[in-house]
């Protein structure tokens, strides 16, 4: 099995926040902690795009690298999790993460942050799978039930895909071939090209 990954297709995301609401509800995430959020670029003008962002479960996770108490681990499927009992709430993982995935439930005096919380790929944490304790600390463990992250499963347009990277790659490839464009949400021209460089032109007869 390949690693678990998320991919969010900016051509399809309609900023409905269904993923955000599903995650909040499923794991009873408190007010102020945003495991998943939808980011919109160029809001209100032609070319507006949205993307749903949470923890990317990086292969070489910066959060894991910088943690002073080494509370992070990676499962066999590539899901990056952490132990809240060890976490000292220093916030260093938040500095390191380029996606802003680590979230903190408190904003107290002297930088009091509480235990770091983040997207778990619906895989819970280092407590007994599907136990009361695991739910209280980390939310629901859907992987242990043979299910996939709820955000991807409820996405209304199937913009957000989550699961086995090989399967996702196949789905995404078929989609790009069918519609003839929109493969370039990431890539050289997007990252370094001119801001108004057009996306690849649709193939003749291609459908959006």
């Amino acid at each position, binding site marked *: 099995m390949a690693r678990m990954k998320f991919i969010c297709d900016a051509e399809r995301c309609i900023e*409905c*926040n269904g993923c*955000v*609401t599903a995650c*909040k*509800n499923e794991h009873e995430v408190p*007010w102020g902690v945003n495991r998943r959020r939808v980011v919109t670029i160029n*809001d*209100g*003008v032609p070319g507006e795009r949205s993307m749903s962002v949470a923890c990317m479960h990086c292969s070489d996770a910066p959060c894991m690298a910088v943690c002073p108490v080494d509370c992070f681990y990676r499962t066999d499927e590539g899901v990056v999790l952490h132990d809240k009992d060890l976490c000292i709430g220093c916030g260093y993982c938040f500095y390191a993460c380029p996606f802003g995935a680590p979230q903190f439930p408190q904003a107290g005096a002297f930088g009091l942050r509480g235990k770091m919380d983040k997207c778990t790929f619906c895989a819970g944490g280092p407590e007994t799978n599907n136990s009361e304790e695991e739910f209280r600390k980390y939310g629901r463990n859907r992987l242990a039930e043979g299910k996939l992250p709820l955000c991807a499963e409820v996405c209304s347009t199937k913009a957000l895909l989550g699961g086995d990277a090989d399967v996702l790659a196949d789905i995404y490839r078929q989609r790009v071939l069918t519609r003839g464009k929109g493969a370039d949400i990431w890539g050289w021209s997007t990252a370094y090209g001119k801001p108004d460089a057009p996306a690849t032109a649709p193939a003749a007869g291609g459908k959006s």
Partner: protein
Amino acid sequence: MFGMDKIRDEAMKWTADKVEEVSGVPDDQVKLIAETMAKNKPSTVVWCMGQTQHTTGNAIVRMMCNLQLALGNVGVAGGGTNIFRGHDNVQGATDVGPNPDSLPGYYGIATGSWKHWANVWGVDYEWLKGRFASQALMEKSGITVSRWIDGVTEKNELIDQDPNLRAVVFWGHAPNSQTRGKDMLEAMKALDTLVVIDPYPSATAAMAASARKDGVYLLPAATQFECEGSCTASNRSIQWREKVIEPLWESKPDHTIMYLFAQKFGFADEFTKNVKVTNNEPSVEDILREINRGTWTIGYTGQSPERLKIHMRNMQVFDPKTLKAKGGIDKETGYVLDGEYFGLPWPCYGTPEMKHPGSPNLYDTSKHVMDGGGNFRANFGVEKDGTSLLAADGSASKGADLQFGYPEFDHVLLKKLGWWDDLTEDEKKKAEGKNWKTDPSGGIIRVAMKNHGCHPFGNAKARAVVWNFPDPVPVHREPIFSPRADLVAKYPTHEDKKAFWRLPTLYKSVQDQFANVGKDYPLIMTSGRLVEYEGGGDETRSNPWLAELQQNMFVEINPKTANDRGIRDKDMVWVKSPSGAQIKVQAMVTERVGPDTVFLPFHFAGHWMGKDLIDSYPEGAAPVVRGEAVNTATTYGYDSVTMMQETKTTVCQIMKA
């Protein structure tokens, strides 16, 4: 088609300069739209409230239909005009429910319609008539929800009924969804009794409870998850919804509340003549069966609870594009699903036994009527101004025995065609003297459709010109409150109406009074929906996940407009309207709106002109997020046919708070 030439004549008057002057859309964009639609067929036009909530809403909507007719996009898969209703089951509500001008199924309120429904309900027509103050009132269109406040506060001699309104029941209704909030508060104060039936106290708590100390009652109703039943989607498919949990605390399902009221008022027996009641709850299956037995007009007759539940159990056999079942046999009952359309979209004619598959696209002549096909209906007479209104020769649905125009089916026509003897003896007895809409056996429909492939509502031309409307050819008229006095002069609104849906309804007099309103209120104010919230909003703003996503009431304002007023993003601003009301909201400076327009969502309530009304809510029942209701500040204006409120366009001024 009837009258398309008159539409063409009107269209030729609209040169590019006129179009741009009135709509702000430049000619090259209009050309692009026209070319795109002409070259990409079939295409569909979609709208929600943006076209209907104007004084000319009926004209705008008719123009869309005319456009699609002209393009040949009507009656084809992928074409048509597709309106998204605002809520789950609004379509069901308007189909069988509380319209002030009609009984269920759009039968209207003439004597014949009352007699038909008295027959279906199993009650004596005279008894039913006796419930009303007079037969005249029984057959007169009532006051619409958009005008209830005038029913209370208008001078008694000007309203077209004896007393003013003295009591109002809000059944699942949020008052902040209706315009003229300032006037509404006065109406609430003047009422004898106000009853709110809702799972949440709704914005009524924030308004009525803040203004009066007694006479306001809250009855807790169950949410959609606490009861089951059928509901109709925007595409006319009906789905059977199941109960998830039992009603919490003291809340009761709507039909139970109705039954308890009927008991209190002494007509429980008549109310549930054909419906079994268990523990004060009328059976929802029986209610649907009663609807099935009476709603021949729009074909709500074939969707029995059994067929609907079978569809829900076997959703996987239906093709997502065509809605058609590809084979499929229900395990529980052995029912054959092949060829049926998911949810049996109405019209699903005839009795459930006739097994009509539903009609996924209206007026589709490429299909046989027993396969969901249809044609334009003959609802408006057989001829007008010397021209026949019936369809031309050769124009009919696939496989119809009559391949030319024909009127609605009734016992006379059936006899004339020699098809009367196709009916069974029992059907003949019931259908004698009736037409297809009032025949309780469904035999006329069965013979016309199943035996002869003809449409029971006749086969006629589509009307491009609607001669019984204020503007037979849809024309432009400026909204009542317009910032452009010059356009108001060129395209004035209608004349005032003395008694329209029982109330005096003003048009020209208000527009003239405010002809120069653009000087002090130069911005066009429009309102609409958000994704996070729904309707009046008190229910969704009580959900912490959704509330977190949109924590403030806001006004979308263009950067240029904001800068001209010294307003920066997230500043608090006052939005003032000619109604005299002003609301305090947060500014969202964005390019989403043009420099001449501002947009406000209508889902907020709980603030009143700058004041937080949290104390007016029952303890613990206030929503997480509260804000100003845009309708506190909206203005007078109603559609000339439907009395729909003109919420999509009025004027305002904005200044920093």
